[in-house]
């Protein structure tokens, strides 16, 4: 009878919330992806950068690192190292060793610190675009990010401002330099009812030279644009002002967006990145009670399907189609493509897309 009493005690313990919804994520390097993704991907989790290559995660940097981007020659990374009150951009080698600190935002007076986020190397490989908070001497409470560009081999003092954020909106983020020298980015603003929204904006030159234009409507509330390797399609996340993140793609001619196609709807997806061959998209979405964001792959065009790494690893969405192995899909079908859950029990940083080449 005593054992039964202890059993009841133990059983009730299993009903607690703690193990179910507060599960701790594991390190990517302590697990394997469920599917083999082509090329090399750099992705951040918990202040560390991981390289996913050949079906293996490898931790290459730790200690406040996030938002990795890759240089054109694929030999270097640009990434953010963040502390509690400032963040800086760094140039790293492909194994995560610091080569150069690009920005110097720390100041003994906390109010004079700055943020730098979302580094992306320009199409000619000469500059790095990023978001930075210029101080407004007329309003010290204003902290809005603007997009800047500085020479990759130069100093921060040569940085040039490209965008002019709306007042007290949070500002301009996710810069995406274009091959034509222009800039695609996400701009935040408020509507008349006080609702915040985001739009994709195109800027052909620094804002003092050229006026930018919106490519999406306030109602769509789109952000996080990713350009396909051929430069002809944009993937983006659109929330429509709701607590969802639709993954959409649209054609792009360097100046305008075509009609959007919704690929994923009804979940909090984020951070899309095109596969090196342009046939698919990686993105992040929460899974399970813990709600940590996992890596997904979504085939967009006919092409090789990612190969499962471990046989029938169970809970992944879309395993039924994925277990067919690497084979080209015959033709595009009206049925929406099925996303493949690539990771489980991890907790990826969604603030910027993975770098994938």
């Amino acid at each position, binding site marked *: 009878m005593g054992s039964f009493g202890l059993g009841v*005690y133990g059983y009730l313990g299993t009903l607690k919330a703690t193990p179910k919804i507060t599960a701790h994520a594991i390190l990517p390097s302590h697990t394997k992806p469920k599917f083999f993704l082509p090329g090399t991907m750099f992705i951040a989790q918990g202040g560390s950068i991981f390289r996913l290559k050949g079906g293996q995660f490898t931790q290459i940097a730790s200690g406040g690192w996030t938002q990795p981007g890759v240089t054109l020659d694929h030999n270097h990374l640009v990434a953010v190292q963040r502390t509690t009150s*400032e963040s800086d951009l760094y140039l790293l080698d492909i194994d995560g060793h610091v080569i150069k600190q690009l920005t110097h935002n720390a100041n003994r007076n906390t109010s004079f610190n700055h943020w730098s986020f979302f580094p992306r190397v320009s199409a000619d490989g000469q500059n790095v675009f990023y978001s930075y908070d210029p101080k407004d001497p007329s309003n010290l409470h204003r902290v809005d*990010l603007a997009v800047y560009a500085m020479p990759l081999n130069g100093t921060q003092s040569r940085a040039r401002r490209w965008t002019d954020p709306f007042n007290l909106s949070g500002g301009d983020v996710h810069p995406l330099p274009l091959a034509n020298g222009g800039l695609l980015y996400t701009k935040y603003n408020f509507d008349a009812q006080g*609702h915040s929204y*985001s739009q994709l904006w195109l800027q052909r030159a620094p804002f003092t030279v050229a006026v930018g234009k919106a490519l999406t409507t306030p109602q769509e509330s789109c952000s996080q644009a990713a350009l396909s390797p051929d430069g002809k399609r944009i993937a983006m996340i659109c929330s429509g002002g709701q607590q969802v993140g639709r993954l959409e793609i649209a054609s792009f001619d360097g100046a305008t967006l075509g009609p959007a196609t919704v690929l994923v709807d009804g979940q909090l997806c984020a951070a899309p990145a095109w596969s090196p061959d342009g046939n698919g998209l990686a993105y992040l979405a929460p899974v399970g009670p813990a709600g940590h964001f996992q890596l997904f792959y979504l085939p967009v065009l006919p092409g090789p399907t990612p190969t499962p790494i471990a046989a029938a690893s169970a809970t992944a969405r879309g395993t039924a189609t994925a277990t067919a192995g690497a084979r080209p899909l015959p033709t595009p079908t009206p049925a929406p493509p099925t996303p493949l859950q690539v990771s489980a029990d991890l907790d990826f940083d969604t603030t910027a897309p993975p770098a994938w080449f």
Partner: protein
Amino acid sequence: MAGFVLSGAMGALAYFYPVLTAAATQTGQKPDPLIVSSSTPAPIIASSTAPFTVLLLGSDDDQKCSSCAPLTQSMILVRVDPAAHAVTMLSVPRDLWVPLSTGGYGKMDWAYSRGGASAAIATVERNFHVHVDDYIWVGLLGLIRMIDAAGGVDLVTTRPVLDDYYPNDIFSNNPFGYQRVAVMPGAQHLDGVHALQYVRSRYSDYYGDLGRSARQQQVLLALRAKARYLGPADLPVLIQTLSGEMKTSMSLERLRELLPVANSIKTENIRQIVLVSPYTYGRDIQTSAGMQSALIPNWNLILPMAHQYFP
């Protein structure tokens, strides 16, 4: 047989005793025997289908001064209609200039500071012509603990929230200190500390306190989404987690009844209201304590709306 039942009951009692003690301390209710004896959900009683209104209060609980009481940083009226599976949330602006239940005019957030929850409830009831059935107060540290106990929240942060003058008063020895915060935009998983930064920051928001009111409602909805993973057996653990950081007029049994109600309400049946212009407009008001930056209510617009959604 009777021995097995008794030993099972004793096992359950041993498990729940610490949390029942904590919960009783915080709610002012005696431990509910139904909690002790139940390892499976009890049927929802009839009263839980009647619409009711709860005033959610959030405030700092720091020691900025020895004699002063905290101002509320968040006041949200929540109307729940279990039968219709619908919820309406109305954020009451902290700067709203109103007659206070404790006497005189002042900002809405002064009510709690001067008379506690009862004064806050009375002030809201008299000005908005609504009836408040219950209240729940959660301190800032309590919100952090609650979100962490829920394993964090998933939400789309609607804009970058950057603030150079964010209060550094929770994990610091200096209650007047400031820190820089930067919460990135987009879909993400936030822990308690970062979720609090998202809902508390106001200086770098064009709409100030009204802007953060919308963010507060957003995080509440994200917490509600986590509720679908919770069962009645989780509630004592959560309440224990909030030790000293939560006060409510609701009994444990009432809270337990509401859990399945929260789970049954679809997002499209949740109405969110923030009193931006033309419902309010800003004005500086000269008082004996100096100039106050206040929000003036347009009752001609607010009262019909309040009557419609909080009958």
